[in-house]
């Protein structure tokens, strides 16, 4: 990659902040100077500017609606036992995962158990999500390559 390309890459990364007025003065001037002389970056700025200008805005009153919901008594994981679904009660009654018979076949795994119920039935299943999506930074290069290939496939699919 030559020096000009590197500048373009750097500028293109900054275009969203430039279009949104989020850059500091020095950075803004640097981007402006480059854009004035680069047709490709000008073209991309035009697109980024259009996307920013037409960004979604929350409907009026959504914040009040959310606040109402937040301050209502929350649906929490501390659901009383009588609040368990009929399916869950049935599962417990059948002794799923609670067999004391050592010689009995292995009880269904957590995943098998979960598939018996509608999605969203168990709040506990959301706990991992609440802790944030798993970071993939620790993935191997091989795994990342697979991901990139998947991304390329997605792009191709999007063109179809």
């Amino acid at each position, binding site marked *: 990659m030559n020096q000009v390309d590197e500048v373009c890459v750097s500028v293109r990364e900054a275009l969203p902040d430039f279009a949104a007025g989020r850059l500091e003065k020095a950075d803004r001037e640097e981007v402006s100077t480059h854009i004035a002389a680069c047709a490709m970056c000008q073209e991309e700025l035009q697109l980024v500017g259009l996307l920013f200008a037409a960004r979604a805005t929350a409907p009026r009153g959504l914040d009040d609606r959310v606040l109402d919901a937040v301050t209502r008594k929350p649906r929490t994981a501390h659901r009383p036992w009588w609040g368990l679904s009929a399916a869950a009660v049935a599962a417990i009654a059948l002794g799923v995962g609670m067999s004391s018979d050592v010689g009995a076949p292995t009880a269904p795994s957590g995943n098998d158990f979960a598939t018996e119920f509608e999605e*969203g039935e168990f709040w506990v299943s959301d706990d991992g999500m609440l802790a*944030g999506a798993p970071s993939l930074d620790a993935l191997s290069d091989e795994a990342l390559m697979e991901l990139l290939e998947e991304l390329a496939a997605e792009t191709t699919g999007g063109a179809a």
Partner: protein
Amino acid sequence: MNDERRLEEEQSDAALVEQARSGNPAAQGSLVRRYHGAAYGVALSVTRDEDTAQDVVQDAFVKAFAALDRFRGDASFKTWLLTITANEARGALRRHKRRRETVLDDAKPVAAAGMDPAEAAIVAGEAARARGMLSDLPEKQRLSVSLRIDEGLSFKEIGAVIGSSEGAARVNYFHGIRRLRELMG
């Protein structure tokens, strides 16, 4: 703006989160006002349905506040909330199994100062067209583009929200932009 509201808005996220943890409604209100728009953008980007997106935002905040004790502060509150919102939106999509197209007519009018009405209308039309095309991109691409442009998130933050690495988020963004440039002609 009254002094109380100004004070709330000047507080850092960390301070507001700390107060919200103890159930302070003013702190919760500040966080909702500060981030409901960003959450809505993410929810709409994933679901492409305005009504569903509003439901998602509501549920995401309820879940986030219920789980605030588990927020470790590794990421910013905003990134954490948007991650919850994105996951909640994906869950809503799976539950509904159907999608309605976003009403593009609702795109925010675009007009630069000094632009004549005819020119402004053309630009607004182009902006709506760009947004419409964005909504047709694969989910990770459109989320990467939306979060980078609308919210100014870094690629590392975007990666956390979409469940990818920083590098993958960057690739998604540039794939998306390249595709949009092709589509826009």
